């Protein structure tokens, strides 16, 4: 029996390392682990940063919103569970000065601790230096929005009255984190202390107010609190999280998260491809080593222990180094882009590190180990005499198992089957079609080559001769290019749709309560100021009472899912823009039918379906209307949208006001003052802050996406380099032989460039096909985007394939013409 070997896997590894055999594999492993860890950690840190940033829009992690005073025990319970709390109360009220100047202000009263997330920015003077103090107005004090100083003709130190309570003006509110989600706001802000509210006497039962209990703390505790609270909520009370605080931002973040996950997943696949290529080269080069060791008396177990152990050590070493490097990459990213991104790094978590390590070990296990293990079972003479081809030590089963495990990793990473499935569909198409097409194309390459000059003939003959190895290489190039194209396509679609969502000049102010008599003068006023007037929508307040004669519950306390709903009704002869008809048909322009169109969520809320008859109350009148259509409204469009729309004839008899929107550039904000002076009954809702915040988030996320795209492109480039490297040995050897036989530099380099460029061009073509399928599936199935054709990727994919692979091939093989042929022959 063989004695126990005194050689350890570590010794083998060290000798291999020193002998220069590990460089490529270690580099691939290291890059793969660090790219996966770097991207995943960056993405994960960015995500938690963006989520925490978006929590600022709530000024809390979670908010309980109510139309009536919040029971004291709710806050007590939250505090006892260890949650941070604060309360805000918002309502519109007249602010009055000692000089009897009046203005309808949007009052917000807050308690100590507000805001729990984000910062309240304040300045002493209306347009003075901004500071974030962490303080709120003390009892007896008020902070005013800058515009309100002008409207009320007051200065700091003056007094302002809210109801019966005089407050001293001690500062200016410059920005509130929750200005967007807590906009009670029909007028400029007046911020005061909640303790002063009883003294104002303005809050009476039935007053239109919004109470908000702000909560901050661990997700699990918040969840528990929400579960305790939910059964107690009645109509007009709800719990808000980030996702429902600001739907536009939530959706932006959602899609960005989808993109970043996709990018990370593609990083995993690219890293796996790089390792697979390097591992394959490693095992091919080590095939003879195994045979020699066997001829010297090594048993299979010994080989398994030595090579298995040394691969494992290598994997662990690369994993540890890759972790450190990956962590560094994400830290550097954040440092480099901290200013542009405007967010502080969030928590990274351990998952990126696990995935990075698993990628390395899984790829080594499935791609490097099987051929070596298989060689250990074959009589050594057959290996040394090339009776079994070193290349074919790797079998389709290995690739299949490797691919399945890589997809497993991708799924684990993204946690999204649709996303993973979309990419896999594209990859399968690329691989399946690829091998088929590769054979055909490479065959036609020869037909073309035999008619062409000698450089072409040699280049194309080389392609043909190694057609099965080239098919594999082409498919790997195609996969790398495809993944890069997918990301470029998705990024373009995402950014374009974001830009289309809120184009420049999107109306950023809404006007409500426009009396019918003010309609034309208001339009002229805006026009005179150079502001483009938008359509005016009639608005009538009403209530859905019953569906098909069944009276709906009045509030949630009854436990009924379906409830009466009050809403602003409008009438329109045509289907408004930003609305899509889901069911039913739109009425003819002059219809006299008693019909109504409902927004889908609203319809669900009252439990109405197409064809149902609704009982509706407007003022003291009750009437019936049949649901003629169900619509989807784009609430992200920031355009006036209505839950309930009637044909014009049905609402004619009811009193109505009008609603419109317009775009006001920030520098013309003062115009609002003269507008409100001239039309004092009109209420203006200022959405410029909301839109500004959404734009900022979109911009930041857009930058993050560009950054991640750049990293993925780099990872893709590495795969291409590894792919070229994988075939360099055989090409160098053949070129050296040709050179030894007198072939000139031009012929060799020319044929190599042709060989690689044709491979690259075909790979580009395959990549475009796969990318189109994956991008379509991703856009329509996984990322909730509208499919956009991107014809540009066709030339881009093919030209990039030709150029990049051609140049990389040339660079990698230039040794063939620089170094004496004998040196090359002895080395490879």
């Amino acid at each position, binding site marked *: *029996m*063989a*004695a*126990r*070997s*005194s*050689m350890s896997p570590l*010794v083998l590894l060290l*000798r*291999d390392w*020193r*002998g*220069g*055999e590990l460089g490529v594999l270690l580099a691939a492993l290291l890059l793969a682990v660090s790219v996966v860890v770097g991207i995943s950690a960056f993405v994960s840190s960015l995500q938690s940063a963006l989520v925490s940033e978006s929590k600022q829009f709530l000024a809390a992690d979670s908010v309980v919103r109510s139309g009536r005073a919040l029971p004291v025990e709710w806050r007590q319970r939250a505090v006892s569970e260890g949650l941070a709390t604060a309360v805000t109360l918002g309502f519109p009220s007249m602010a009055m000065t000692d000089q009897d100047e009046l203005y309808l202000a949007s009052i917000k009263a807050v308690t100590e601790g507000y805001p729990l997330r984000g910062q309240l920015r304040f300045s002493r003077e209306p347009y003075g230096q901004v500071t974030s103090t962490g303080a709120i107005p003390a009892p007896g004090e008020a902070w005013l929005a800058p515009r309100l100083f002008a409207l009320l003709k007051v200065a700091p130190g003056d007094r302002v009255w809210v109801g019966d309570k005089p407050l001293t003006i001690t500062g200016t509110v410059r920005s509130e984190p929750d200005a967007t989600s807590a906009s009670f706001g029909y007028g400029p802000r007046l911020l005061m202390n909640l303790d002063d509210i009883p003294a104002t006497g303005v809050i009476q039962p039935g007053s239109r107010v919004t109470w908000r209990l702000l909560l901050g703390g661990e997700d699990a505790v918040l969840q528990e609190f929400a579960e305790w609270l939910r059964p107690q909520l009645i109509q007009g009370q709800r719990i808000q999280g980030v996702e429902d605080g600001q739907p536009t931002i939530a959706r932006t973040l959602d899609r960005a998260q989808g993109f970043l996950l996709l990018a990370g997943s593609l990083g995993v696949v690219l890293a796996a491809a790089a390792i697979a290529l390097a591992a394959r080269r490693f095992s091919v080069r080590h095939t*003879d*080593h195994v*045979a*020699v*060791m*066997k*001829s*010297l*008396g*090594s*048993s*299979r*177990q*010994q080989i398994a222990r030595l090579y298995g152990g040394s691969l494992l050590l290598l994997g662990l070493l690369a994993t540890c180094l890759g972790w450190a490097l990956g962590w560094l990459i994400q830290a550097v990213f954040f440092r480099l882009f901290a200013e542009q991104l405007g967010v502080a790094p969030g928590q990274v978590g351990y998952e990126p590190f696990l995935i990075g390590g698993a990628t390395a070990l899984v790829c080594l296990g499935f791609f490097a180990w099987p051929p070596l293990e298989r060689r250990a*079972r*074959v*009589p*050594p*003479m*057959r290996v*040394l*005499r090339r*009776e079994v081809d070193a290349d074919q030590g790797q079998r389709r089963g290995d690739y299949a198992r490797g691919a399945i495990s890589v997809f497993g990793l991708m799924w684990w990473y993204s946690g999204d089957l649709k996303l993973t499935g979309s990419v896999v569909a594209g990859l399968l198409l690329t691989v399946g079609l690829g091998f088929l097409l590769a054979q055909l194309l490479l065959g036609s390459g020869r037909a073309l080559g035999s008619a062409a000059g000698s450089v072409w003939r040699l280049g194309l003959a080389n392609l043909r001769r190694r057609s099965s190895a080239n098919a594999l290489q082409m498919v790997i190039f195609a996969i790398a290019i495809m993944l890069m194209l997918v990301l470029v396509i998705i990024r373009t679609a995402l950014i374009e749709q974001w830009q289309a969502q809120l184009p420049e000049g999107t109306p950023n102010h809404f006007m409500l309560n426009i009396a019918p008599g003010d309609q034309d003068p208001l339009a002229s006023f805006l026009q005179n100021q150079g502001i483009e007037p938008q359509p005016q929508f009639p608005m009538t307040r009403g209530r859905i009472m019953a569906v098909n004669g069944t009276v709906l519950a009045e509030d949630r306390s009854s436990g009924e899912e379906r409830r009466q709903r009050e809403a602003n009704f409008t009438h329109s002869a045509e289907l408004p823009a930003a609305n899509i008809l889901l069911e039913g048909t739109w009425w003819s322009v002059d219809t006299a039918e008693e019909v109504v169109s409902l927004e889908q969520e609203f319809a669900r809320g009252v439990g109405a379906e197409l064809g149902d008859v609704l009982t509706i109350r407007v003022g003291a009148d009750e009437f019936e209307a049949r649901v003629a259509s169900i619509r989807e409204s784009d609430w992200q469009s920031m355009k006036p949208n209505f839950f309930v729309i009637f044909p014009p004839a049905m609402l004619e008899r009811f009193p109505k006001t009008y609603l419109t929107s317009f775009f006001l550039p920030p520098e013309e904000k003062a115009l609002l003052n003269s507008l409100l002076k001239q039309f004092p009954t009109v209420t203006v809702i200022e959405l410029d802050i909301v839109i500004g915040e959404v734009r900022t988030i979109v911009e930041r996320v857009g930058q993050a996406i560009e950054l991640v795209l750049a990293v993925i492109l780099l990872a893709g480039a590495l795969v291409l380099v590894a792919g070229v490297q994988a075939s360099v040995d055989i090409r160098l050897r053949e070129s050296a032989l040709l050179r030894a036989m007198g072939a000139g530099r031009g012929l060799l380099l020319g044929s190599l460039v042709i060989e690689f460029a044709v491979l690259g061009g075909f790979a580009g073509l395959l990549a475009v096909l796969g990318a189109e399928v994956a991008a379509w599936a991703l856009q329509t199935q996984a990322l909730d985007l509208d499919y956009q054709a991107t014809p540009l990727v066709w030339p881009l994919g093919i030209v990039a394939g030709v150029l990049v692979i051609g140049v990389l091939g040339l660079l990698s093989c230039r040794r063939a013409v620089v170094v004496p042929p004998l040196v090359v022959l*002895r*080395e490879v």
Partner: protein
Amino acid sequence: MIKAINLQKSVPVADGTLEILRGISFEIKRGETAAIVGASGSGKSTLLGLLAGLDTASQGDVEIDGQPLIALDEDARAALRGEKVGFVFQSFQLLPALTALENVMLPLELAGQSGALQRARDYLERVGLGARLDHYPTMLSGGEQQRVAIARAFAASPAILFADEPTGNLDTNTGNKIIELLFELNQSEGTTLVLVTHDERLAARCRRRFLMDSGTLEEAS
């Protein structure tokens, strides 16, 4: 002792089966030196690989010191090789990632022998490469590489040494030196030596000569 019993080897080819060895039987006793000569493609190297247990026969058997190889699986054959057999390849088969010294140490380390370093150093000095211990194979000439291969083969003190065209890749002068070295070590170590060669000078140094022709073997008188 090496015994070949009706040894046959055939491989499938496109139009049927190619018979490389057609029933070869012979015996070589301990300490003997034997040369197998013949034209290219006559099956010499295949026979040597079978005798060394580096490949398996289609039919027939090989016995080494009375142990039939047919009864052994790949691992048991490897163990037997590690214990009793050394092999010198025509193309040297040194591991490119290992230095000359490490290549010679390799069989000793694989067998778990102590003092591998010193022993390998000694053998390299004996083959005249004491000054090239830390050189990698690519830094050595063909003759030097073959000398490392010979040192590696003898270092494990095999009972039998097989050499496949040991001078086949070398010039006459270097080939002569390698022949000298091989026989000198063979004599001092008392090894059984079986070699395959084209080289008449090398064959002439062996006590027994076998002629291989189209898969059959005959001992020359």
